[in-house]
């Protein structure tokens, strides 16, 4: 009997926590499609605010997508090979490099942005282009790509596979593209989702690095929270949710899938553990 009580008590507590996390999201979504939030749902549902967000902020949405895709391209091209090298090199130097590569996640975005502005702020064309924001996003997301690929490479025995290919006469590059990359695919996929999600939502760095001509979605959000009516801010937030939720669902689905396959894997992937706020 006492056991049952404990069950219901814990369930109630957990439901309360869920409510704390979900209710504000529901409120914000509702506010975005309500004619007048102050009056409530009685005032009717509308897509007017979404339309207004589109006319005010469409460019921030395009720019965020552009930067996210560019960031993914860069982290794939430079991050995946780097992860492979780190996976092959045991020993202290490789571990030190690994530690250094993860630093941009441990150091607050504000500090990194300040450092970038101090060194490169003088190059006007660079400073005012979206490439400046891209640099920040690449630094911040690269660790996630590297760690994600590294995690997969460390559980499969890719060296053995490679040696097999080498004994059949495969060159280094043939081995990398036809043996290593296909085997690292789950890690690359998880890392890619992570990079896109992080880039689309990045604010701390971006707020410091942006210019009036290069506003991303989260920058626009901060702007609308400060200066727009609640309904527009909510509709804009709703647009952001619509962009980010498919990525999150894919990520949850992928990690569950992986958990099912490698049951007792000691270290969970670095996915989704360290988001800066």
């Amino acid at each position, binding site marked *: 009997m006492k056991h049952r009580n404990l069950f219901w008590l814990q369930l109630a507590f957990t439901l309360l926590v869920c409510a704390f996390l979900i209710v504000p999201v529901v409120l914000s979504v509702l506010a975005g499609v309500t004619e007048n939030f102050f009056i409530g749902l009685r005032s009717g549902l509308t897509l007017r605010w979404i339309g207004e967000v589109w006319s005010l902020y469409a460019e921030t949405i395009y720019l965020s997508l552009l930067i996210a895709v560019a960031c993914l391209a860069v982290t794939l091209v430079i991050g995946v090979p780097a992860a492979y090298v780190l996976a092959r090199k045991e020993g202290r130097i490789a571990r030190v490099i690994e530690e*250094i590569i993860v630093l941009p996640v441990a150091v607050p975005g504000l500090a990194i942005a300040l450092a*970038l502005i101090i060194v490169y702020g003088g190059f006007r064309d660079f400073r005012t282009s979206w490439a400046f924001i891209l640099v920040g996003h690449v630094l911040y997301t690269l660790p996630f790509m590297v760690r994600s690929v590294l995690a997969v490479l460390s559980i499969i025995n890719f060296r053995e596979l490679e040696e097999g290919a080498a004994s059949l006469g495969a060159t*280094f590059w043939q081995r990398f593209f036809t043996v290593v990359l296909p085997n690292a695919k789950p890690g690359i996929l998880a890392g890619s989702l992570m990079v896109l999600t992080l880039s689309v939502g990045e604010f701390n760095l971006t707020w410091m690095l942006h210019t009036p001509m290069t506003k991303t979605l989260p920058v626009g959000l901060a702007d609308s929270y400060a200066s727009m009516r609640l309904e527009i801010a909510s509709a804009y937030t709703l647009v952001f949710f619509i962009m980010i939720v498919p990525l999150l669902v894919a990520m949850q689905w992928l990690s569950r899938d992986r958990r099912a396959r490698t049951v007792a894997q000691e270290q969970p992937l670095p996915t989704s553990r360290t988001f800066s706020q």
Partner: protein
Amino acid sequence: MDRRDYPQLIIMILPAAIVFTAFFLVPMARLVIVGGSGEEHWAAYASIITKPRHLESMVATLALSIGVTVAALTVATVSGLFLVRNRFPGREILLSMLTFPLAFPGVVIGFLVIMLAGRQGLIGEVSKLLSGDKIVFAYSMAGLFTGYLYFSIPRVILTIMAAAEKLDPALEEAARSLGASPWRVVRDVILPALKPGLIASGAICFATSMGAFGTAFTLATNIDVLPMTIYTEFTLGVNLAGAASLSIILGLVTWAALFIARSLSGATVSASG
């Protein structure tokens, strides 16, 4: 095959190394130097203790981060243990709800706190209906705490659940059969076993809270957390050296928290694994 591959391996790590050196290592080194090149020279690094405004900001940020970490760990342990031990319909949905807000940026979370406890927020409306008094706390320390707790719970709960899944129920049975009270079972059996997970996720939670900027920015409270102080020094105060030295100190604190936790929990994790 190993040595012959060296040239190719170097080619492969070179792009990442160049990008990283040019855009992270060199700028961070400059930041350290700039921090010591203001009017106060290297004493700027001591301003966190000597300047009352900076000290106040540091103490407030530390208190907030520690408080949020303790609260998040408590909440996540209760709910995490519950979800690991019980199977019931709807469990998966609860789990998804608890981890879903993981990727919300700080600005959005600030806005969600406003929806909850702001001037037009839910708590205000409900409390007005119930008691006639409108409770609004989004723009105070309580609002910051709410926001930080919001982004901390999802990131803590996964780690704790992973640790709880490895708990051996037989140990608890044994303790109970030897006459231990439920509280003693929690204190002497469950918590020690969860310790590595608690340390690891607590450090992540603490470091994130210390460096959080977006939430505080949206809520625009009059309490200056350290990242807001850095931001105002940089934009309003035009005090580049001050902003630089403060961000280096902040970076050291967050990095150290993560590093210490990793070395503390890492050893135990591999030992228990």
